[in-house]
């Protein structure tokens, strides 16, 4: 069944220069493999479209049931240079929770 990512995960996002990171954390241990299968760098890049100019990298933290996504070129130059309201990528994580995934 198709559900939003918010059904199985919570997130937190922030910045390092012009890169935003999103931590995606499974709400329960059984959700972690689904996150690994569904939340791929390619899908995340496509989901955010024009907002992310560079590549998306993914790291795995099985001990926390979490992945860490790095969205390069995602903050309009970053920090003090950026003209965006969310220059620090604070809302990327919440935004990703709307992405549709297959939950089984």
């Amino acid at each position: 069944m198709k559900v939003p990512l918010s059904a199985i995960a919570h997130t937190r996002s922030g910045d390092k220069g012009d890169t935003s990171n999103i931590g995606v954390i499974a709400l329960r241990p059984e959700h972690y493999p689904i996150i690994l299968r569904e939340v791929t760098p390619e899908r995340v890049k496509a989901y955010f479209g024009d907002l992310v100019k560079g590549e998306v990298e993914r790291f795995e933290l099985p001990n926390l049931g979490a992945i860490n996504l790095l969205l390069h070129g995602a903050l309009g130059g970053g920090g003090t240079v950026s003209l965006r309201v969310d220059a620090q990528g604070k809302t990327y994580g919440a935004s990703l929770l709307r992405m549709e995934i297959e939950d089984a």
Partner: protein
Amino acid sequence: MIRIANGQGFWGDWLEAPVRLVDEGPIDFLVLDYLAEVTMSILQKQRQEDPNLGYARDFPPLIGRLADKLKQRNIKVIANAGGVNPAACALAVLKAAPGLKVAVVHGDDVFDRLDTFLAAGYEMRDMDTGEPLTSIRSRILSANAYIGAFPLAKALDTGADVVIAGRSTDTALTLAPMVHRFGWKSDDWDKLAAGTIAGHIIECGAQCSGGNCQVDWENIPDMANVGYPIIEAEPDGSFTVTKHEVAGGRVHSDTVKEQLLYELGDPKRYLTPDCTADFTTVHLEDTAPNRVRVSGIKGGPRPPTLKLSISYTDGWKAIGTLVYSWPQALPKARAADRIVRQRLETLGLHYDEIYTEFFGVNACNGPAAPPNPDPPEVQLRIGVRGKNRKAVDRFTRELIPLVLNGPPGATGFGEGRPPVREIVAYWSALIPREEIETRVEVIS
């Protein structure tokens, strides 16, 4: 076991937090993290205007307010409040709290040494773009090396009540009391990694104890009195994250996990001046309400280089807003945006970037935003940036006329023309660690 509390996640964080940490229960060390990447450049500008400034000015009055209790209960304070002028910060602290012994850590400020470094062949290329430092040399405002926990621990070894540093890493503030009290060695990699990760968990204050937490956020108790985090550290490197019992908020593996992932890069290679920490070895356990035990952390050797934090001027920017009301709020705001751009073009003004967002429609989430086809109002937000200050200034005069000479239904111009601000950009580079020598000075 020692208790290390963090009462400040950035300069501008809740003023009451450090006072509550002292008043509401037992702690041994109070750490305060004041510095973000941009903060150093702001402080540098303040010091240029007044040689007695350039530090976090909230800090001396706070220590004045807490001085008697710190002394009575033997609570030590470690803060990177010194900014670009730790010596002046120390004098201000002594003025506010004459009975305290203050130790200052010097050596992170390399602003006056950059040309020597360049002459020695260090190109200090930007870690993101790869460009050499010479391309921005004339526009540099500040340059500091991130220093680690060992100089801070040495300052604690002097018996000081307050340790003041400049650009120490955020995590070093928390690791330093462990090195000082447990006698950890500079190659105890697993323990140093554990103390570093403890520092990462509490460095943003309440962001690990209920603040900004997505899980069950509506039911996290008493956020008006949110408790700032406390690490109960053991000599073997394991620790418990908690808060004072009477305080609000929540410490749970959910809140701690969110903060562990915050502003993380490669989780296996979290580099600091003290060690390389491996976040994939962290084991969390909820042992009781508001108590999360953390164990199993592994680390590796510290890198041979230290990171430099360099700020420089990079042109000008201005951001202005107007509000368009229903009906057709979004088409009207879009039309206004097109008109502004056309008028700037007609004037022959060019910018590095013009960027438009529509609040209520797509500002935070871009194409990922939920559809909102007929919003009751939309805020148009246009920003420009460029090297030519006059061009940016002219932009600020092109927005408000739209209230009379653009699409109908515009309002929200109450604050007048938006200000033109100088952009202070941030450059990070590496330098061999041998080039940076720290020194502890005790003042009382």
